[in-house]
């Protein structure tokens, strides 16, 4: 049988249309790969594909959306395993995601043996069954092509994909699926071993169990536990109990039982598991978390008011939730050691949980993974921790941690001793990040081909330019990267200054510029706190200047004589969107959420967003309607409704991204892709665009939009101030006093937008909206 290891995966099939299976299918479709989604034929069903079809329908409704675009949805074909196994003939990868029962899985595999094409990969999404058992008794040829691909829920958003092969698995097949998972599906690949819970769950479930039992032992309230087990330790803010509510309380006993059943005797996990009668009772009573009647927290709506309540871990009674006040939670700002050495209950709790979890992780090397990089990546991307266990030990200090364990007469894992002697698990040498091997020597942390990380570049050198809000880095081959790093990457005068300086520098010394950063969000927009404060003290000229400066700097990006490529990931909103709109090209991470959201705070885009959207909505084919009004109407709709694309693919539909802008699935590959795009533009002889000449409808267009807005107001869909904001926007988009017999430049549109912006900033409802957004993070409807 000829292995097809060199062949890319062009078509896939997912068997098992449950939450995980359908989510995996969705992510495969998000990558642009057609995928067959199969499940069993329900008993006495008229529609034999009912289960898979139902799963696809659910995908379309789920929030957060598993699908990145409507086009992706069309790539999923439903079917069933009784009628459709013949279709496997041209499938390159079959993912099994059926119930966690060995007999069922094996009987399915036997059915696949004759139907799959030779050399296709078969993988299981099992989280609990060892690979050795799964392939037991199956033909060698099947075992050679078989591995475990363990996704995390939800597959689109959780970055971790554990890939586990057995002794019989062809390493080339492992490499093939790992490459696909990495490049096409955008996942962080961690190569696990065939051990219980693989890497992430082995340590993560220990953490959850420890977090629960120590909270009980220390008599903490759920709020206190969550106040420590969240951000202070670098975990998601849900902490432990709110996390259990989120994932479902009933999941816990399953995971616990299967892990316990397969762990070797003497494993430390076995000593911390115990009965939790309250949990059992809650599940029995239907308190399974957010999907059920509530969990450790619930929203009590009796009496017409929504009261957030929490359960008393001792009595099981609900009472109104009260915020925990723990000094240790604040102390955590001074580092992990400050937290775990704090004398209060929170500090003791953090120490008990983390000391157990971290020494457990150290004791599992090399049983579960070949190196600590894999383990840290698994915990970061599978449990959304800020740091993995070895990174956490380094923050505590390896020697300090080992000493602290010794003082409590607890065992110190050998590998931790090694690190204590060496100094740390990671170190930077010659500008490169190194990690500690079990042999006590350091070796460089390797990045895959096509992965370029700004954090690596930052270790290796100094920025070309830097101020409090942004820095310029040399990323090689004549390309520079401009990094925002203000709070939430809000764009402020310092950012604008550094953009301007960067353009000057690159123009004189380099070939191209990439705008990119590795924060959660590319940029949440202009610093509205600054604008609000300045407005509150009536410093109108200063604000006017700031807008003018933004327009000028963004214009300089657009007309730079070299290519400027925007490479966003996460949110790119308001002024953070406008900066991208002025780039020569965009290479966006698939998970980019882009939009002009100014109306949410009672403003309109002031930094060129209005003009750029008018340009983007000009007809691009003969099929699109002609005349001055259609682009205005489209821009008006997008901006006045503050539409935010929920993915890069959707951003293309909304035309924030242009047709030839690129999308990168794996975030770690974004900078390299953007750099390549910039160099390609250089090679193609990049020329700045010609200034647009816009034919806009003028007052007649504004009248038409006014009628539409008045309609919304009359229907109660828009408020009086929405009308004010919308009409200010309409004034700018329709070109003020122009008419369709003449053309006007983007400068004029920008000027109108700036005037509109300033007039709105003087209104009470706009200022109230800005204040509300700043204090609550949510828009105010006033």
């Amino acid at each position: 049988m000829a292995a097809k290891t060199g062949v890319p995966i062009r078509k896939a099939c997912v068997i098992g249309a449950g939450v995980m299976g359908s989510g995996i299918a969705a992510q495969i479709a998000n990558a642009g790969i057609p995928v067959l989604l199969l499940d069993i034929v329900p008993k006495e069903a008229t529609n034999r594909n009912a289960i898979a079809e139902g799963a696809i329908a659910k995908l379309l409704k789920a929030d957060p959306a598993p699908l990145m675009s409507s086009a992706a949805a069309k790539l999923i074909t439903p079917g069933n395993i009784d009628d459709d196994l013949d279709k496997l003939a041209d499938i390159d990868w079959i993912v099994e995601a059926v119930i966690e029962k060995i007999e069922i899985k094996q009987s399915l595999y036997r059915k696949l043996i004759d139907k799959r094409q030779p050399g296709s990969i078969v993988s299981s999404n099992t989280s609990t069954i060892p690979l050795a058992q799964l392939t037991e008794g199956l033909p060698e040829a099947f075992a050679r092509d078989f591995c475990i691909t363990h996704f995390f829920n939800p597959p689109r958003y959780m970055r971790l994909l554990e890939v586990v092969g057995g002794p019989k698995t062809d390493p080339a097949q492992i490499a093939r699926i790992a490459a696909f998972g990495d490049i096409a599906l955008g996942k962080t690949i961690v190569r696990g071993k065939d051990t219980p819970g693989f890497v992430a769950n082995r340590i993560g479930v220990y953490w959850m169990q420890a977090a629960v039992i120590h909270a009980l032992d220390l008599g903490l309230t759920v709020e206190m536990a969550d106040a420590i087990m969240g951000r202070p330790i670098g975990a998601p803010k849900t902490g432990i109990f709110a996390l259990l509510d989120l994932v479902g309380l009933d999941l816990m006993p399953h995971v616990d039982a299967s892990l316990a059943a397969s762990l070797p005797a003497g494993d430390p996990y076995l000593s911390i598991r115990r009965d939790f009668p309250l949990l059992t009772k809650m599940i029995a009573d239907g308190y399974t978390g957010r999907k059920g009647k509530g969990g450790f927290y619930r929203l009590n709506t009796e009496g017409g008011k929504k009261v957030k309540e929490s359960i008393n871990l001792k009595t099981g009674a609900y009472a109104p939730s009260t915020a925990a006040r723990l000094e240790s939670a604040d102390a955590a700002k001074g580092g992990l050691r400050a937290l775990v050495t704090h004398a209060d209950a929170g500090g003791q709790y953090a120490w008990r949980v983390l000391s157990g979890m971290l020494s457990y992780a150290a004791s599992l090397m090399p049983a579960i993974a070949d190196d600590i990089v894999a383990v840290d990546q698994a915990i970061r991307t599978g449990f959304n921790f800020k740091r993995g266990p070895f990174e956490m030990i380094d923050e505590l200090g390896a020697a300090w941690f080992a000493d602290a364990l010794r003082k409590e007469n607890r065992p110190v894992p050998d590998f931790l001793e090694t690190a204590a002697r060496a100094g740390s698990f990671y170190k930077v040498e010659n500008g490169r990040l190194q990690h500690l091997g079990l042999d006590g020597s350091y070796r460089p942390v390797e990045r895959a081909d096509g992965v370029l990380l700004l954090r690596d570049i930052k270790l290796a050198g100094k920025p070309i330019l830097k101020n409090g809000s942004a820095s310029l880095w040399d990323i090689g081959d004549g390309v520079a990267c401009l990094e925002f790093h203000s709070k939430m990457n809000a764009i402020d005068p310092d950012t604008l200054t550094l953009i301007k300086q960067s353009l000057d520098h690159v123009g004189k010394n380099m070939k191209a510029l990439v705008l990119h950063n590795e924060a959660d969000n590319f940029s949440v927009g202009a610093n509205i706190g600054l604008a609000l404060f300045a407005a509150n003290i009536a410093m109108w000229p200063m604000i006017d200047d700031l807008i003018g400066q933004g327009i000028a700097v963004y214009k300089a990006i657009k007309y730079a004589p070299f290519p400027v490529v925007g490479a966003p990931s996460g949110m790119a909103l308001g002024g953070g969107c406008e900066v991208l709109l002025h780039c020569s090209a965009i290479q966006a991470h698939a998970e980019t959420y882009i939009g002009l959201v100014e109306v949410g705070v009672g403003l309109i885009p002031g930094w060129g967003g209005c003009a750029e959207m008018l340009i983007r909505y000009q007809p691009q084919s003969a099929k699109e309607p002609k005349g001055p009004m259609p682009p205005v109407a489209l821009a008006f709709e997008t901006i006045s409704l503050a539409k935010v694309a929920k993915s890069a693919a959707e951003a293309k539909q909304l035309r924030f991204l242009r047709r030839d802008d690129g999308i990168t699935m794996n975030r770690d590959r974004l900078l390299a892709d953007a750099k390549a795009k910039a160099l390609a533009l250089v090679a193609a002889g990049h020329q700045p665009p010609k200034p647009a000449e816009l034919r806009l409808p003028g007052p007649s267009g504004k009248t038409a939009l006014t009628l539409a807005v008045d309609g919304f107001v009359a229907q109660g869909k828009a408020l009086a101030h929405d009308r004010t904001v919308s009409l200010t926007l309409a004034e700018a988009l329709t070109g003020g006093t122009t008419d369709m017999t003449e053309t006007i430049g983007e400068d004029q549109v920008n000027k109108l937008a700036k005037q509109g912006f300033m007039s709105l900033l003087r209104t009470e409802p706009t200022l109230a909206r800005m204040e509300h957004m700043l204090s609550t993070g949510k828009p105010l409807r006033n």
Partner: protein
Amino acid sequence: MPAYEAPLRDIRFVLNEVLRIDTFSNLPGFADATPDVVDAILEEAAKFCSGELQPLNQSGDEEGCHFDDGKVTTPKGFKEAYAKFAEAGWIGLPCDPAYGGQGLPKVINFAVEEMVCSANLSFGMYPGLSNGAYNALHLHGTEEQKKLYLPKLVSGQWSGTMCLTEPQCGTDLGLIKTRAEPQADGSYRITGTKIFISAGEHDLTENIVHLVLARLPDAPAGIRGISLFVCPKFLPDAAGKVGERNKLACGAIEKKMGIKASATCVMNFDGAQAWLVGQKHKGMSAMFTMMNFARLAVGIQGLGVAEAAYQGAVTYAKERLQMRSLGGVKAPDKPADPIIVHPDVRRMLLTQRSITEACRALAYWAGMELDIAAHHPEAERRQAADDLVALLTPIVKAYLTDHGSLAANLGVQVFGGHGFIRDWGMEQLIRDARITQIYEGTNGIQALDLVGRKLSVGTGRLLRRFFHPVTAYLETAAAKPALAEFALPTIKAMAKLQQATAWLAQAGLKDPEEAGAAAHDYLRLFALVALGYMWCRMAEVALSKQESEERAFYQAKLAGARFFMAKVIPETNLLFTTMTSGKNAMMAVPDDYF
């Protein structure tokens, strides 16, 4: 001893012509406050203050209060004056009619308070404290508590106190030790020692209602563990009949620099029965609502003293003959010219007067907004007014009391050696005014409140309530040729204030010590801009009345405005410079330097 004549014309000018209180007749209380009624009230108050209170000011100071085995006797004449004051209904003037008050606007009461403070600051303490207790109970008390205590406080039959300070804690109330033990009947037993308790014990009323901050057994540590209690000297029955003596006593009265006729007591609570006011552990927020009123009231004390000092000084300056005018003989028939001809004496008098008049306008504006915040039909307008009052409170408290002290000092200076001896009563004003800069939060604390708390609320929302109307007004005013003379210097000062505010927001965000170091200068800068704005508004009115019969009155207003614009508001430049020079001149000094 200086005579005091209430500046009724000036007061009416601010109320009727500048603030136009008649335009607020849609608010509760204002409908009844027709110009006739207001005039009558003010005239009666003026008469009472000049006739009854002012004559007791110097004698009260000389005699002081007497302490004898827990009993405190006020100086001669106080008891009778208090009885008449209460009888005339002055205590209940701004109070809720449901409890026997007259429900008149707060701004009217501000004017009355000013007159009382000019006439006899010590006397004003007694009804002032009752007013604080009234406010706390009115806002946070139960229906039962209100029914029991408020009518007595409003009528003046009982008086009130605020028991906050303890030997180990003044500014930092988180250190309070006084304990409150819950009792089976729902009441509490208070044990502890409070000091500096104004009106803690005296002979003016049949009962004294103490509002006490104390800590419950299960209280969290610090400022979040403090509760407020009402603790009467005599336990009343439900009908308000005074009964058994509660277990509390005055241990001593303080010997003080000033306000000697006001009894400042050490109060010992020895398991005294008390009742919770408001929520457990939320005593500070309850106390703060009353403290905010009280801070404005202290600002009014500063205003009152300043007015009294000016009146004394100006009378003397017209009579006292010394030297000849530098510009030529002014009173050839006399052995020397009256000292009012000398530039430096004028500088002192006009400094007193031009600032005092603007302070009056500013304080009354805050009072007006207090009424709007309480009664306006639109929630947004109420919020805006509340914001403005919150912003102006530290400024009114600190600047007006600083000015009270300054004006009292200038008053003594105008008197020369005669100011320094006691007969003339001028030095008493300095001694009396001094405490106003200290209590209800020292003026340093007021400045911190402004920069640390008030600036950051809603990313500057409170500031908007001042900057928007004021900049808009000044822009319009600058365009009017006759008014530009006043508007332009104020606009300049405003620009400095805007820059200073932006500087503070940035520097203070990075380093709270910068904010602390700048606070005092910033508060004064802010105050001067506010006073400049008030002068513009007063000048605008005066300019429009140049044809009236009272031309001289309005000309005098313009003269005051001119002095302020030429000689006072330029201090903003200095303040801006010192403030933005940063903290290092203070903070970089090593501790062992001191």
